[in-house]
């Protein structure tokens, strides 16, 4: 009998051993410990609750399986007649209540700490878009969009012919990372331009929704330099699975250097809008900007998705009045998923997109739209 009893116990023990151990790279079983004080606290609490559940589970299931083995009719068991016990019933109401209080206290303490984003060193405004993230460093004015990288995007379509296992960081890489310094309290302000998204990096143990009309707050303070990856965690439509987050934590010196580079690059971009662009250059740039800004809905071949997103091939917008075309790109179309791209496209990018849409896929209008025209219509 003793042997039989040991079997479930040994099995459970084996499962737990696997559960708590740090597993092989591809077989991660448990929550990450992360790289912040909060994330380690969260991990410890997670392990505490897990162990409490395991102990209760072993006791309850142990009693149950003992009963199943011993109290069976085939073993000649005769049913007892008891059907209540005040002591037992009060006991198993009060004891769990006490255990819950033991669990609730540290949780409440941690929560209070997590919700206090005062005295931050850096503020980054995060805006969710279908389906990319916009980052604005409120203090320095650095501002950019961050979308899924091209390698993942191309490998990820159906029948792409590319083995996704060969793509490094498949679906977890972006074109523009956000760079933050270690050892600083970073406050994130979250909002959305369209539907609800959620910004989550597991290594920081922070996740919060980005909601249109709301500005939510959360904070982190990273201990170790490194690259940390996360994903959108709230269903936000067709490409919900394709808007990852990549944070690179660097030293403070490197961070300041990066901020300087970004500001210089933004100035150069603004200047290039004043020169006259050749059609080939606009088409080349248009193709790449179209791929990140437009192709998710209108598709790379411009055919759209019937009934959901209109196609651009032979469409009255792409073949008709240029000003109307620019208007819909900059200001969107109310009541539809077509958002206003004015704020997220530079004059050059907008000009390139409109030029591209009017000449790609056999649209062949021959129209060339210059950045200066976009500037006028803003």
């Amino acid at each position, binding site marked *: 009998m003793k042997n039989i009893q040991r079997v479930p116990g040994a099995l459970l023990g084996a499962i737990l051993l696997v559960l708590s151990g740090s597993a092989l790279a591809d077989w991660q079983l448990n929550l990450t410990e992360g790289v912040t004080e909060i994330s380690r606290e969260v991990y410890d609490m997670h392990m505490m609750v897990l162990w409490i559940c395991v102990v209760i*589970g072993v006791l309850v299931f142990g009693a149950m399986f003992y009963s199943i083995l011993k109290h069976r009719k085939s073993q000649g068991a005769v049913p*007892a007649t008891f*059907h209540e016990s005040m002591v037992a019933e009060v006991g198993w109401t009060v004891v769990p209540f006490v255990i819950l209080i033991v669990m609730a206290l540290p949780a409440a303490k941690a929560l209070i700490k997590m919700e206090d984003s005062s005295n931050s060193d850096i503020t980054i405004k995060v805006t969710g878009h279908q389906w990319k993230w916009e980052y604005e460093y409120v203090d320095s004015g650095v501002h950019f969009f961050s979308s899924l990288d091209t390698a993942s995007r191309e490998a990820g379509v159906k029948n792409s012919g590319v083995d996704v296992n060969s793509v490094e960081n498949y679906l977890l890489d972006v074109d523009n990372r956000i760079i933050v310094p270690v050892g600083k309290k970073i406050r994130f302000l979250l909002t959305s331009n369209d539907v609800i998204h959620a910004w989550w990096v597991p290594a920081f143990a922070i996740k919060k929704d980005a909601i249109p009309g709301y500005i939510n707050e959360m904070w982190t303070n990273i201990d170790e330099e490194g690259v940390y990856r996360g994903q959108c965690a709230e269903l936000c439509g067709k490409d919900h699975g394709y808007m990852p987050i990549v944070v690179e934590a660097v030293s403070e010196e490197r961070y300041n250097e990066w901020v300087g580079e970004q500001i210089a690059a933004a100035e150069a971009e603004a200047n290039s809008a004043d020169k006259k662009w050749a059609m080939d250059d606009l088409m080349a740039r248009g193709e790449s900007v179209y791929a990140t800004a437009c192709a998710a809905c209108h598709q790379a071949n411009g055919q759209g998705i019937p009934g959901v997103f209109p196609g651009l091939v032979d469409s009255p917008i792409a073949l008709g009045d240029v000003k109307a075309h620019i208007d819909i790109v900059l200001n969107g179309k109310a009541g539809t998923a077509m958002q206003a791209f004015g704020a997220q496209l530079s004059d050059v990018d907008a000009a390139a997109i409109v030029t591209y849409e009017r000449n790609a896929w056999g649209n062949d209008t021959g129209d060339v739209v210059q950045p200066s025209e976009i500037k006028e219509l803003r």
Partner: protein
Amino acid sequence: MNAAATEADHHHGPAPGLMRWVTTTNHKDIGTLYLWFSFIMFFIGGLMALIIRSELFQPGLTIVDPHFFNQMTTMHALIMIFGVVMPAFVGLANWMLPIMVGAPDMALPRMNNWSFWILPFGFGIMLSTLFMDGGGPAAGWTLYPPLSLQTGDAFPYLIFSIHMLGVSSIMGAINIVATIMNLRAPGMTFMKMPLFVWTWFITAYLLIAVMPVLAGAVTMLLTDKFFGTSFFNAAGGGDPVMFQHIFWFFGHPEVYILILPSFGLVSEIIPTFSRKRLFGYSSMVYATASIAFLSFIVWAHHMFTVGMPLTGELFFMFTTMLIAVPTGVKVFNWVSTMWRGAMTFETPMLFALGFVVMFTIGGFSGLMLAMTPIDFQYHDTYFVVAHFHYVLVPGAIFGIIAGVYYWLPKWTGNMYNETLGKWHFWTSTVFVNILFFPMHFVGLAGMPRRIPDYAVQFADFNAIATIGAFGFGFSQILLLVLVIKCIRGGDKATDQVWEGAQGLEWTLSSPPPYHSFSVQPVIK
């Protein structure tokens, strides 16, 4: 009874042919309709689950497009919740409640017919949206705006079908309340009612309380989309988070609507096969009532990440953790019922025991999710998917299957094939764990839910889960075969059927007469 009255009874038998099922007001016929409807929807919803799992078998987009994937996750949930679990419970209630309280039929038989026949039309409309321009709903069954407002032509049809399902549920619930309140046999006081009757009684009140809330929420979505209102549109002064509060004020009691009747079923079955009275009957009743009450004040634990004030998060964390107390009482009572009984392990008992173990595993992960600071890590990951599938599949659905096996000999007059039943249990139990247990791991490792494709480090566990899904899906064909075989013949069942069974249903013949109790039994 004189000869004339007996003659009149005979004229009240079932109408011949198909019209029997269309015009029936008989609680058993309607119960049968509900159960078959639910069984068919189980296979349709299951097929959608298999499409989802097939896509997730390997990383890389292989079978469907992301938009269609989202339609499948949305429809799978709507069908399994509103088309499988709820109708199955109502079917069991229709068949058994009048018999268990000693009544001839349900209190409101014509409404009973109506509340069933709305369902096929409601789901016909809902399923037809898959073929419309822009496809079916793809914003998740929770229909959060603004995303749900991007739905194509399907949108008004979806809202209308949800209204129809709501009307059907409310009518069903009113009927159950009316039956339990008015038609109990003399001597059956409230505290003598079988536990299945009690849990359904409380469930019916939950339904009446919250289905109108859902109807209100989806109607506001409808007017936001078509009539220019801005209930949930921030640009018009509305609030997208308000929808989530209203939705989950419905949604959390709904969670208990999906589990309380299964609690009742298990509380009937375990005493029967332990040959021992249910331990702590009155604490079971009070625990059920407490869970129902708490279900109204925990809703925002579904939305810890929306940016609620700290005090709100603390309140909803504490109330949610409290649910563990009455739920624990139930599990302890079931184990105590088994303790020093004389157990046998026929198929209904096996499913009931599977329920207790695996529902408790789902309860444990629920406790973990209740704790706000760590919920930030779990929220909207596969850990949540694992949690609610543990409480709904080996929880609610195992409870339903246990109930079907328990009463099938009573319904048909034939014993089912015990060997086939045991095969069904063991294949279902093994595969359901292969299917859902690895989801805990990928969730903790950081895989978000509702994504059609994933980073390659999640590949192995997803492949395992998909194998489990196909195994579990095909195992259910055994149940179909078993039920059909049992209807067509088999060893004749006695009236008592199970040696240790207690209750009025076992005093009737197997199968019971068309009108259950034409003379009320008296309970001492």
